[in-house]
């Protein structure tokens, strides 16, 4: 993971809006980040902050309209995904980029068996024969810890439990051994023991194949265990980005700090009442002109209303390479 390694993925200024009856929704505004081979980027942030929309925009998974990817560049190796034809993009999605969706029931097809759905990419992109693909499908299900895989591969999605469906999704995403895996809340429906097993499996593939992983989750325990770097989103923007230890031990953005304060733990004193971040997130009906967190922030001052803060380095490294934050307050507090 030396800094010289070429990035697998380099996203610059990604901006996505939805056209709705009530006007535009600016779900993602000028988001930039990158990933190197074998690296895990954790993505956290408020519900509705644009995590899923960002990742779906990267690989052309949003229906257009209502969505419009208005600006940006998404380099996968040397090619810009935003400039590709739909056919090329669909080939990239199956073979080079695996995607685990947040909602397994909507992305699995209820009328086909699981075997059918795992074999499809294997036949299309890996050049396997049907018997080979079937054998591989069972192997993949075993890998994600589905008991009795040889039998269950013949089942339909509704015959699986919530967590099993999620693991079927993971198996499909890993089927073609992609360079990049985008996993949107891949373990939310899994108990901790199977979660641990899936995390170990992914770490293993990451080592063996150099697979890079983008892991969206609200579970900061998972982030602590797997991420190399963390990107924090709020109101469609990246508000903080840092190596994992920095996020947990030296958070800069008031939203990140508030987020860390709200986690209940399994050890220590049990709180009578959980702390919450008061107020509601903004509905972004226009490009941001003020800090999106301003209305809920304890440190707001005039400038936060007048100017949307840009990301700036905290540790002297270039933005996107070390620790950076988009906040007027923490930036000024440091320089004061």
């Amino acid at each position, binding site marked *: 993971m030396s800094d010289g390694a070429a990035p697998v993925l380099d996203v610059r200024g990604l901006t996505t809006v939805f056209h709705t009856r009530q006007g535009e929704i600016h779900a993602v505004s000028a988001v930039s980040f990158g990933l190197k081979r074998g690296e895990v980027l954790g993505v956290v942030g408020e519900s509705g902050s644009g995590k899923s929309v960002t990742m779906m925009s990267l690989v052309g998974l949003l229906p257009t309209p209502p969505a419009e990817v208005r600006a940006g560049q998404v380099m996968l190796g040397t090619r810009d995904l935003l400039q590709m034809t739909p056919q090329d993009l669909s080939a990239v999605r199956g073979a080079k980029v695996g995607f685990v969706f947040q909602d397994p029931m909507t992305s699995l097809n209820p009328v086909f068996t699981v075997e059918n759905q795992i074999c499809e990419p294997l036949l299309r992109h890996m050049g396997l024969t049907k018997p080979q693909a079937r054998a591989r499908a069972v192997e993949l299900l075993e890998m994600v810890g589905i008991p009795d895989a040889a039998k269950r591969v013949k089942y339909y999605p509704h015959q699986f439990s919530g967590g099993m469906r999620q693991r079927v999704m993971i198996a499909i995403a890993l089927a073609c051994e992609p360079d990049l895996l985008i996993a949107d809340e891949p373990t939310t429906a899994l108990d901790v023991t199977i979660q641990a097993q899936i995390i170990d499996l992914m770490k293993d593939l990451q080592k063996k194949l150099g697979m890079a992983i983008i892991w969206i989750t609200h579970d900061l325990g998972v982030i*602590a265990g797997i991420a190399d770097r963390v990107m924090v989103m709020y109101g469609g923007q990246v508000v903080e980005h840092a190596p994992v*230890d920095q996020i947990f031990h030296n958070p800069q953005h008031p939203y990140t700090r508030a987020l860390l304060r709200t986690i209940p733990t399994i050890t220590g004193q049990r709180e009578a009442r959980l702390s919450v971040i008061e107020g509601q997130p903004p509905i972004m009906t226009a490009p941001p002109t003020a800090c999106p967190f301003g209305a809920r922030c304890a440190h707001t001052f005039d400038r936060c209303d007048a100017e949307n803060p840009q990301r700036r380095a905290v540790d002297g490294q270039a933005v996107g390479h070390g620790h950076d934050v988009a906040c007027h307050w923490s930036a000024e507090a440091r320089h004061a």
Partner: protein
Amino acid sequence: MREAVSDLVQVDGLKMYFPVYSGVLRRHSGDIKAVDDVSFTIRAGETLGLVGESGCGKSTLGRALLRLYEPTAGRVVIDGEDVALLRTEALRKKRPTMQMVFQDPQASLNPRMSLSSIIGEPLVEHTALSTAQRQERIYELMDQVGLNRRFANRFPHEFSGGQRQRIGIARALALNPKFIVCDEPIAALDVSIQAQVVNLLEDLQDKLGLTYLFISHDLSMVRHIADRVAVMYLGRIVELSPRDDLYARPLHPYAEALLSAVNEPDPVRARTRQRILLKGDLPSPANPPKGCNFCTRCPKVFARCLSEKPSLFQVEGGRQVACHLYDPAKPSAGSTGGFPHPKHLQQGVSE
């Protein structure tokens, strides 16, 4: 004091099997024993946490309780009425008092209905509110779960995963039910909104005396919200203990392994902690082991476990555990409290 409070929910010998058909003649060749002989009670105003491995039968149990499935066997009494015996009209009348927050928010929301009609539907069905009163109630529910009122006319696909989950919660709360099965109600939410929803559930419980079955794989949140916790494994309850006792000292070897796997929200501690990794195969619920369901993976397995299913034994402090180590009739090394730790039984511990 505990005995003085009545049980709102009594479950006795509940079984929920899904038939398996095979061969060209689609003959009934066996059953998936998703819930296999489960008994427990929930006191009025109590929160019972339900945790356990993915696929162990939690959602099926929740659905069978509310008669969203027709149970294979057993009795479920909710608020004095045997739910399994209710006829169509009586069941319809009972529905408003028992609700479910579904695990899969997308699948449980009608894609062609706006947010306000989704939340308002049960109000139309079961109350006599005027249109204006109904709208007010819908807004109130949206405020409670942190959904912006301006979202009222949006459709499900226009929401993020966490926003959709909150729609399901608002709908379950609409009719002021007495008993709610919350199936992973906060799994797709960020921690702040999780906290907001959990605080809301607790406030409603304090105010209205609601009773919850709270299904979750998030053991820290279960520790926060539950009074007692049931741990399930392969269709059966293996331990049912008061919260603090379970977290301080899990008795069942599976409960112990489960608690050891919790992710610490701290990268430094995450690198150094000890996890009990379960080895061995997870058996299929269509073909569970002859003895204890956990015997294929248990680090403390001994001869008796392979041949005989342990029943739920009552142990000290109102705890129940289904493990031969705790059999009061045949005390073994473990039944006096601490765990037996013979060297050769430690093969499950690694890292």
